[in-house]
């Protein structure tokens, strides 16, 4: 594995938490974003994720560097899956270790917020009767914003 990567295979979250664990770590936070069956009352059949892979991996690594600068001592790994994802599949995993717990929580939450702002990855929701690329489009201002 690479500590900042876009993958096509199912994500094994444990691989990333193992990567960040070390003898100086007192706390590890592991966030996994999963495909949810219902969003805004509409049943999702599956999601299709697409990425500009090299730039996405570069941006994930930049987010990791931002985190290490803001919370000295944290160690970070982030992976995002692309392709066709079904209910409960892991779309994204963020693993953060830190000597103390507060930084591990804060840095982890920072990472998912930044991913949703700057990493070139897109999600298409496929329902039983249609599909839609998500994102902050004007047409659907309430979609995708609180998607996880």
């Amino acid at each position: 594995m690479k500590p900042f990567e876009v993958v096509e295979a199912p994500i094994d979250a444990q691989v990333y938490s193992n990567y960040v664990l070390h003898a100086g770590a007192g706390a590890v936070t592991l966030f996994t974003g999963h495909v949810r069956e219902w969003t805004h009352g509409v049943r999702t059949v599956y999601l299709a994720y697409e990425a500009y892979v090299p730039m996405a991996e570069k941006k994930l690594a930049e987010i990791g560097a931002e985190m290490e600068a803001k919370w000295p001592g944290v160690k970070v790994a982030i992976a995002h899956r692309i392709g066709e994802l079904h209910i409960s599949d892991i779309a994204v995993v963020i693993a953060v270790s830190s000597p103390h717990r507060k930084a591990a929580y804060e840095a982890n939450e920072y990472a998912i917020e930044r991913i949703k702002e700057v990493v070139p990855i897109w999600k298409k929701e496929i329902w039983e009767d249609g599909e839609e690329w998500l994102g902050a489009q004007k047409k659907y201002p309430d979609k995708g914003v609180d998607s996880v």
Partner: protein
Amino acid sequence: MISIQYFARLRELAGKGQETLDREQMTVQELLDWAEETYPGFGKDDIQVAVNEEYALPEDVIHSGDECAFIPPVSGG
């Protein structure tokens, strides 16, 4: 030649994932204007451009050999 990549909604709208544009140089804004004219409904006001895998400003200049990508609003996570 400037290479261009399309993703997500824009890939489906353009009907292709990439193409090349035979220009020596142009600004990011000129590239967006060109795309809006070429692909009606492109929605350039909501789209960013990456040049060589980095977000660019409208006034930035793209040169032949650069790799550009249109980045519609992202929705990872």
